[in-house]
């Protein structure tokens, strides 16, 4: 079985996100980088499926050369191969990204055979476009289900479970298929020390890609006004009891 997971290098910020003076980027001077939690789960899900069914996981990213770091992190948790689509900027718009990914995936599949599953994160952690997975699937002509909170593979059928307000939805997709994974589907493992050291030795394949710019353009980044904290400490220990009762009464909890 072959599974491909697409990830994106994003900053790992704190509670407040600083923006560069030109308002075009997140100021990453003292930030580390990561992938979105959804993508971490996608990698974990892929590794678990391989552990169960055998095969290989490949991780693919489109990003600056520094994104090798995220590819190697994935490798250190059990991914076998890594492919980088190098670009000169932090990211491309979703249409252009999807176009590039689809063409690179096609190339990879010529060499390695079709991927049974192509996994994405539900959305990227920085731009939150919710688009790249769906657009890529569309270009590849494969079905996709986003928001997956469960994913099993049996006899060429991927069973995807997703949660909605109305209940649980179950989808059955014939592979090859694409799935957008949502955080919570599993608890991703951390890299081991041995894994980390081994990942340094893995060769990262580079595939060039082009693509025309899409319609989505970044005008400016703006930090939303900081929400003032409404936390009020009513007291500590037993001394707080009467204040808590008063508040609950005020809120109409007791009637």
């Amino acid at each position, binding site marked *: 079985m072959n599974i491909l997971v697409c990830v994106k290098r994003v900053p*790992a*910020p*704190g*509670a*407040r*996100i*600083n923006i560069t003076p030109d308002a075009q980027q997140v100021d990453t*001077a*003292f*930030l*580390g*980088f990561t992938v979105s939690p959804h993508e971490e789960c996608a990698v974990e899900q892929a590794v678990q499926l391989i552990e169960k069914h055998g095969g290989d996981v490949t991780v693919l990213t489109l990003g600056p050369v520094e994104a090798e*770091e995220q590819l190697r992190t994935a490798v250190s948790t059990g991914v076998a191969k890594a492919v980088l689509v190098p670009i000169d900027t932090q990211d491309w718009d979703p249409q252009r990204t999807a176009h590039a990914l689809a063409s690179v995936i096609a190339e990879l599949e010529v060499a390695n055979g079709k991927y049974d599953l192509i996994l994405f994160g539900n959305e990227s952690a920085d731009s939150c476009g919710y688009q790249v997975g769906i657009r890529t699937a569309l270009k590849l002509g494969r079905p996709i289900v986003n928001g997956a909170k469960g994913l099993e593979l049996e006899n060429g059928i991927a069973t995807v479970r997703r949660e909605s307000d109305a209940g649980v939805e179950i989808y059955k997709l014939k592979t090859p298929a694409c799935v957008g994974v949502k955080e919570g589907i599993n608890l991703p*493992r*951390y*890299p*081991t*020390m*041995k894994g*980390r*050291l081994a990942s*340094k030795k893995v060769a990262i394949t580079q595939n060039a890609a082009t693509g025309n710019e899409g319609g989505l353009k970044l005008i400016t980044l703006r930090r939303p006004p900081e929400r003032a904290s409404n936390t009020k400490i009513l007291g500590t220990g037993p001394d707080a009891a009467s204040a808590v009762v008063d508040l609950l009464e005020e809120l109409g909890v007791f009637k």
Partner: protein
Amino acid sequence: MSEFPTKAKCVVIGAGIVGNCLVGHLAKLGWTDMVQIDKGPLPNPGGSTGHASNFIFPTDHNKEMALLTLASQKQYIEMGMNNTCGGIEVARNPERLEEFNRRMTSAKSWGIDAKLLSPAEVKELVPFINEKIVLGGFYTPSVSCVDSLQTGTLMREGAMKSGNLNVFANTEVLDLEVENGTIKAVVTNKGRIEAEYVVVACGVWSPRIAKMAGANIPLTPAVHQMADVGPIDILQKSNAEVAYPIVRDMDTFCYERQTAGSMEVGSYAHRAIFMHPDDIPSNEASALSPTELPLTQDDFDPQMEQAIELMEMLGDAEIKYAINGLLSLTPDAMPVLGETVEVKNLWSAAAVWIKEGPGIAQLVAEWMTYGYPHLCDPHSSDISRFYAHEKTDHHIYARCDEHFNKTYGIVHPREQWATQRNMRRSPFYAREEAAGATFFDARGWERPQWFASNEKLVKKFASACEPRAHEWDARWWSPITNAEHLQMRESVGMVDLTAFNEFDFTGPGTMKFLQYMCVNNVDVEVGRSVYTPLLTPGGGFRGDLTIMRLAMDHFRVITGAFDGGRDNYWFNRHMPQDGSVKFTDMSSSLCTIGVWGPNAEKTMAKATQNINAEGKLVPFDVSQKNFPYGSVREVLIDGVPATMFRISYVGENGWEVYTKMEHGLRMWDSIAKAGEEFEIIPVGMGVYAVTGRIEKGYRLMGAELESEYNPVEAGLNRAKVKTADFIGKAEYLKAREEKPCAVMCTLEMIDNTSKSGIKRFPTGGNEPILTKTGERIVDTKGRVSRVTTAGAAPSLGKYLLLAYLTPEHAVEGNELRVMYMNELFPVRVARVGSQPVFDPTDARMKS
């Protein structure tokens, strides 16, 4: 929550281990009306304390650090915050095993139980270690893990409960206001507080906060990498926070410390990574905390390989948490404590690690309360020790870069810095370089330790100049020193003393001021001098220097390179504010040559002239009769105006000769020429600071003379006490009435042959003096007998040690032991008190 105050007696900025323990100690010492603020939340405001590895290995070669660490551990124990787990330093290289012998010796000095382990014994205590790559271990059962956050919280809350402290978290300092050189107020985002005292206990942010007041706290935030890996089966099964001893993998500069089911792997092996305090992200902008930065993985990878090599189980453990943790580094790897030199009542308590935090808080609290600490002498941590060039980022980065990887290194007591050399050169440098000087660094000054040009004398004095067989003893040492010593004692030598500090005090209030500062009477005739200690209010040594009276209201203080900054601060801090005394630092204006030996007088008689009453240039009468010991004269040396001061620190007839820097080279050449017929030689500091000094039993500030000891114990008390008041007088008078419980003695090694058959030479690094049965000697004040200086006495064919001994052991002829490299050597008390072993009547200096 109480309202933000507008006034307080004392504001402590910072709620890490130092700030918290400081408010606790200040409250215990009676301080009231205190405010503590921190820009972060409590109990973990996001500084280095929050991510500290929190373990204590108590053994340190440095006395100050050892005492502070032990005092801290005691406090952690008293608060129930000390979890004893034991610790093993393991060796991968043979040199490290030697170092363990040295550590055993230091452990003995400080009374720390320690043991050397075979690889199999290491394995017994740490079953998951790969003992095949370990050559041995240094085991300290008392190594512990502490809860620094909870300790800080208890100390802080203790002060709050006593009603003496208000605490404000999430309160950021915006400015420090200074008025007439004194701290005035702290401006925060919550309001402005006027305060009499302000303490900067802000860890890595300290330089940034101090700068708001125009003060300088020289440290840099630096990265220490650590990772928490787990879960690990055997650790989980131990069901304890720390069940196994902490392992320090000394030769890879790495440690492994259990944290419940995981192992923390920490490193001091990576390249030095610095960050400017202004660049540290805010609490809000930090993914974890401001001092827990993203791990730069490539720097850590080699350490992971080494860790797996030592403990294979670590390989399969998951890296759950890994950071570039920020901590504070200073140019000399010691803390930065005390009142800032720039701003009165603005204090620094910075560059402090968990292991010494509570002790340092106690020390600073005592310092603020009593005018000087009681716990121990803080001279290596004193903020006023730094010279101007040592406070620059340039210096801080260069030195920290050099010493960071020595955190677990084997550092020789005489080890020299490689960076920031040639910062200060005397005018004689070119001559010294041509004579093949080996230069040692003296706080920026390049000082010749010995001269290759004197190598021929090693043959002349062959029997006294044997090479040292052990590389450690011979490191940063040369037999040429002994040869220079003997040539000086036989004829004459000249010593470059330009690194001296000279402070001029002038004005009508000078006499009164200096009387108040000094123990001995400075009211001497013009042209005479005074040797005097300076005391702390507690009566211990604060300084040790000579003063020349150049005119009625003009005194010149001479002090050493290593104490210049501290003495400068001490005088300035006590100067009258009415303008009656003017202070001028002449240190960069004057250069000095010491000319000593039996032929010094003949040499200087040839070189020295003055202008007589008839206006004629005539030879100057340098005889003892006209120019007695201890006097000062203005002369001409080959036309150069110079000041000659008849004194000696090496026990020979001769002078310290001062002139202006720009005249220096000419004066050097003139004296060298005059001494040619006597085979004058340049003599290095190896003689001046060690062999010449120790033969005469001369005490050195920072070695024999520390604030724990008083002049009576050091044998430096005079027959009479002057009537004028001076700092420490009451305690000094008291000490004179009491029988001292320790006395400074000179000891000689009876046999320095080691078990392996080679002669050993203690370096003078706090080696313990023991009874014949190997027991420590501790006086009634709790101070241990240890070597304060060690050195050869080439004129006597002996190897001497200086040490304080208790009265029952301070008996001439009494046989004791010195431990060196974990081996006992027999020693004998040669002298009790200040009388020298060489030339006990000082006849040579006065003839």
